[in-house]
């Protein structure tokens, strides 16, 4: 039938269209071109990025989401940050601080309610001294040894402090604004205000002047200090003052004109910064990995339903969706590579995205080869799961932070890190196929040796693939270590983790070669491969020792434990005695 043939294309095309709608620019908020303001390039965290990125990451850290609803309107990150910087009295009333920890709630005298607990800065105001005092105690303890309360209070303090810094970046909160600062440059009390602004500024918005070094961006405070001490007046201060005044006076037309003026000025001083910022804003808005996550979930549901109902329609649909999701994710990775000027994997967040990408690409290939739906099912589920992991890892702020000195080597990031991450993908996909095999054996009633054979071939092929990449990746890592630390192998926890994956995959292959295990044994071992990979990927970071402990995290411990337990259960299911596998004699066949 012609229609089914095209179904995969139609489903994939629709999913892509959906993903593109994410990237469309939002309309004006109350007539203000807030999105245009978010496009302005600034310097923060060591790199030039759009203000939009700062706003999104700050809101994500403070609120756990990139937007919220307040007084019947959806407020996006750009509008929120504008209110915070220019109209703090408005922003301070918006309940955006999430507090889940019961003890912290108790500290500020609130009760746990059914929904998440959101508080405004005004509500936290009376408790700020207490929060600061408790956080100072907590911060004296090393992160690994903090109690739950200590972690939560230190985290709340960090968020309040971030909020406070943003609030005092462009003008001191409560002061009449930048125009007034410019008029009273020479006043006796101006200098300390400028110093405060310089110290609190979260980002630097004024591009370097002609002739200054390329990284010499200035914050408003720095520019005011320079002007106040007899230096030249930065030309960006005037349009910034107009923007400030227009926003406070609720005059959208004047705001939009001043914004155009500011953009012309930025273009004159730093010709490529605006274009670069624009690209990053498109990436921010598109949220390709979020879109990919939704598409993978749809693909997984479609393939699951296909086993019970209308397989001829749903299987191609699922494949089309998986393909579309892979395109979206690939584009997202490309965007990151271009924006950062670095290979795809630079931190834990991007490693999760890349592991997911490796899994779905391998899954697509397998599905194309075997056409039985298992490639689609396992790849979409594990692709979805890895993007969920990435989503959580991304909540800690900017996911494109600068690389520390020792990691600053594009060659090794492109070879060692990418190969080893592909090795993770392979091991996980083999494990996923093994899980599918185990569950299927218990669900279906009619023996189907042909599919069993196919699944076992798939798992074996992928384990070989994973062994190759994890071995080469590990040895390349050793060579990098020899280049930068003078020793090939130092038994560092992360190195040991990689070695464990290599050893485990080698054991599986040798056990199969020697005939000690058959299909089922290999599948049990492949599921255990998931545990080993998860431990060496995340577990070793939790030890907090060694040269690779840059990705430290404590909250994920329970998630990891849960994952390992679930894999153990699945191994049990896979290992369950034969009478569970075959339909019992006498039972209805």
């Amino acid at each position, binding site marked *: 039938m012609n229609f089914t043939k095209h179904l995969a294309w139609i489903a994939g095309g629709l999913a892509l269209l959906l993903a593109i709608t994410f990237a469309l620019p939002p309309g004006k908020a109350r007539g203000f071109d807030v999105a245009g303001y978010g496009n302005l390039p600034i310097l923060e965290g060591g790199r030039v990025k759009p203000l939009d990125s700062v706003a999104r990451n700050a809101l994500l850290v403070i609120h756990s989401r990139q937007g919220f609803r307040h007084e019947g309107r959806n407020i996006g990150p750009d509008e929120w940050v504008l209110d915070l910087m220019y109209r703090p009295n408005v922003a301070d009333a918006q309940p955006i601080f999430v507090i889940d920890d019961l003890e912290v709630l108790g500290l500020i005298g609130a009760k746990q309610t059914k929904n998440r607990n959101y508080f405004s800065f005004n509500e936290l105001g009376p408790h700020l001294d207490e929060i600061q005092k408790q956080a100072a105690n907590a911060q004296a303890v090393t992160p690994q040894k903090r109690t739950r309360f200590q972690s939560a209070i230190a985290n709340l303090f960090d968020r309040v402090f971030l909020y406070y810094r943003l609030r005092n970046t462009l003008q001191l909160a409560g002061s009449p604004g930048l125009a007034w600062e410019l008029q009273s440059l020479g006043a006796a009390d101006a200098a300390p205000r400028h110093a405060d602004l310089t110290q609190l500024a979260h980002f630097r918005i004024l591009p370097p002047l002609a002739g200054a070094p390329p990284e010499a961006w200035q914050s408003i405070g720095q520019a005011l200090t320079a002007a106040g001490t007899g230096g030249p007046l930065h030309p960006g201060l005037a349009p910034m003052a107009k923007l400030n005044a227009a926003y406070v006076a609720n005059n959208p037309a004047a705001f939009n004109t001043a914004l155009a003026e500011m953009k012309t000025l930025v273009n004159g001083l730093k010709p490529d910064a605006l274009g670069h910022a624009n690209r990053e804003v498109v990436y921010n808005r598109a949220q390709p990995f979020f879109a990919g996550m939704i598409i993978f979930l749809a693909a997984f549901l479609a393939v699951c339903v296909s086993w019970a109902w209308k397989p001829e329609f749903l299987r191609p649909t699922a494949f089309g969706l998986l393909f579309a999701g892979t395109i979206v994710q690939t584009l997202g990775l490309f965007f990151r590579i271009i924006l950062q000027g670095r290979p795809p994997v630079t931190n834990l967040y991007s490693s999760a995205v890349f592991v997911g990408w490796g899994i779905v690409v391998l899954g697509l290939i397998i599905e194309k080869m075997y056409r039985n739906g298992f490639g689609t099912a396992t790849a979409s589920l594990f692709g979805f799961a890895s993007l969920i992991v990435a989503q959580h890892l991304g909540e800690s702020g900017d996911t494109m932070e600068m690389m520390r000195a020792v990691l600053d080597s594009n060659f090794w990031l492109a070879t060692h890190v990418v190969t080893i991450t592909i090795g993770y993908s392979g091991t996980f996909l083999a494990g996923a196929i093994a899980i599918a095999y185990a569950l299927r054996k218990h669900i279906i009633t009619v023996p189907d040796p042909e599919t069993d054979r196919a699944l076992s071939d798939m798992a074996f092929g992928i384990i070989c693939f994973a062994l190759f990449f994890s071995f080469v990746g590990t040895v390349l890592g050793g060579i990098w270590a020899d280049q930068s630390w003078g020793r090939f192998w130092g*038994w560092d926890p992360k190195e040991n983790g990689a070695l464990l994956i290599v050893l485990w995959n080698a054991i599986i292959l040798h056990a199969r070669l020697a005939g000690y295990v058959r299909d089922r044994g290999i599948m049990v071992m492949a599921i255990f491969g998931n545990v080993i990979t998860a431990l060496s990927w995340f577990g070793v970071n939790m030890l907090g020792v060694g040269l690779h402990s840059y990705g430290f995290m404590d909250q994920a411990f329970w998630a990891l434990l849960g994952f390992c337990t679930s894999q153990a259960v699945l191994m049990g299911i896979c290992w369950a005695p034969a009478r569970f596998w075959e339909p019992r004699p006498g039972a209805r066949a």
Partner: protein
Amino acid sequence: MIKTYASRFWSLLKSFQVTIVMLALLMCLVLLCTLAQVEMGTAGAVNAYMRSFIVWGDFSLVPFRVPVFPGGALVGLILACNLTAKTLDMKRTWAKAGLWVVHLGLIVLFAGEFVAGMMQVDTNLSIEVGQTVNYVSSYKSMELAVIDVTDPSWDDVHSVPETMLSRGGVITLPGTPVTLSVKKFFPNAELSNLPAGQTSLATAGVGPGVLVVERPTATTDNEVNQVSAFVEVLAGGRSLGVWLVSNALGAPQGFVHEGRAYTLSMRLLRQYLPYAFTLKQFRHDVYPGTDIPKNFSSLIQVVNPSRKESREVLIFMNQPLRYEGKTFYQASFGKNDTLSVLSVVENPGWLLPYVSCVLVSIGLLVHFAIVLRRSLKRRQEKLEG
């Protein structure tokens, strides 16, 4: 009879059982070693688990150490033998050529790790801007240095390593009239002011005012033992007094004998080099507006009279200097960015992993190519048949 034992041993040696059991044991060891690092530090855990033949356990129930697990060296050795036997036993056909090369590469890798484990020497070189240094220091081991400082332009250094001091007895210093007699040695000690009414073994220098209490030796990577000893200095047939020496004491102590001035100090064990490094510049760059380090680099003038060489070298992250069998790499810094610490590694087998990497990669590619060709052929036959 002997022949059957030998052949049985041979078939055991090359069996897959041994491979799998050893790989599994190695996995356990790697896991234990990783977990132990939290308590023991990396060096301690590696020595206990990976670089030993037997892992020993201390139990309070029995007075002696109990072997609890085969150590990394033993497992590695058996695995290497198994690998060699297996490789020799493999059919020498072209179909197996790839696997042959892979396993050969693995043998080289094992050999490399053995060489590193047995022969690698880790030291470091701390150097301040403008300073010239011609020695590397150990991280932990100490030496007692007796230096003839009479000539202001030339120091005549005589040193006694910690291990020799710990054996006690009388130590002669060849080329000097001085002889040392170790009265008491502490592998690790805590020094404090001597309370009134107590007396010290020491009779000269700062020793008589110091109380020395023995402490258990350090276990983690970051701790350094405070090695201390009471040493009697004998010269010309008479005693010049008993001195307390310890790396916990600050300035060197001195004595004079027959018009020559000597200093006495416990310091990190030094190895003098036939060349010298001068630090001309140290840079610590950060990303603008942050304190995230972007780069560390040391500009070094290398002066080597034996090679008539004097040149500048820039050592920075991921770019070490390999010179005369030693590798110098940027490791740390201090003193407000005026002190640069270079880690120094001497490993004669450093090239082996590179060889292994190339061999294994080629081997795997060859093997995959062979397998691919075979399966294509089979598919072709199927189509034709």
